[in-house]
């Protein structure tokens, strides 16, 4: 099966400069059950009417892109079983996410930068940007940096 977000390695072994690259669009159903589970298991005590826990800005973005996040890593030359790590994220909310909506989720791999890593030998830093919206109404935007161990590829 071809990679949904195809990418080629350059002759030097450095990540290809062919970014930004679109991730297949997907959707995320923000159900009351999912919100309850998130609140219960994170020991949240605050809830407000039909408003979802704000961590869904991150959860809906990652869980809602058109392919699992591991396939995004694989498409960028990494592997989920090498233990990629979240490094940082920025979330902007146009409005609070609501329970009971199926959101459209669109993302891009903005960049991949290879850096030497004391722990991994070398690591690719992926920068993803993912929008969560309901039709024409924007809800949240996630910018996420993930560190993918690349062994001795530096």
């Amino acid at each position, binding site marked *: 099966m071809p990679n949904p977000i195809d990418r080629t390695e350059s002759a030097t072994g450095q990540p290809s400069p062919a970014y930004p690259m679109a991730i297949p669009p997907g959707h995320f159903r923000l159900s009351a059950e999912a919100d309850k589970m998130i609140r219960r298991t994170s020991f949240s005590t605050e809830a*407000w009417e039909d408003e979802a*826990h704000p961590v869904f800005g991150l959860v809906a973005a990652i869980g809602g892109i058109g392919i699992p996040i591991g396939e995004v890593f694989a498409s960028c030359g990494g592997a989920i079983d090498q233990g990629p790590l979240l490094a940082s994220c920025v*979330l902007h*909310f146009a409005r*609070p996410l609501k329970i009971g909506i199926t959101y459209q989720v669109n993302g891009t791999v903005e960049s991949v930068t290879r850096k030497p890593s004391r722990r991994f030998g070398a690591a690719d830093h992926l920068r993803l940007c993912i929008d969560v919206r309901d039709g024409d109404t924007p809800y949240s935007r996630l910018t996420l940096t993930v560190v993918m161990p690349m062994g001795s590829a530096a």
Partner: protein
Amino acid sequence: MTGQLPSWRIEAVPQEPMALWAKLLRDANPIHVDPAAAEALGFGPRTVNPGPINLAYALNMVMAARPGNHPREIHARFSNNILSGDAVEVSGVADFAEPGRCCARVRVPERDATAMDVEVRLVAREDFR
């Protein structure tokens, strides 16, 4: 000038929710569900909390301290893992010079490790537009 927010604590991070979150995130990383996989990658024989749960802990502290508000913007830096069985403490401050700005730190006291730092800009729900 800043003011301390009430701290927030979990005595022991449970393993069971990690699989539920990983499923919702469609995250197949075995370190969240398989202690042997976590150990093989150098995390020790305990499963690793998915990063978004750690962010939820920080947001829980901030939201409890500032009810009636919702984040407009969140900046989070993940620096260490939280493992099943860890006690977790979230502390934070409110920035009086910039109303709505709070900073939170998620720590694992037993390992003297900072798991993440979070900066949140809150807006009153009625002002969200």
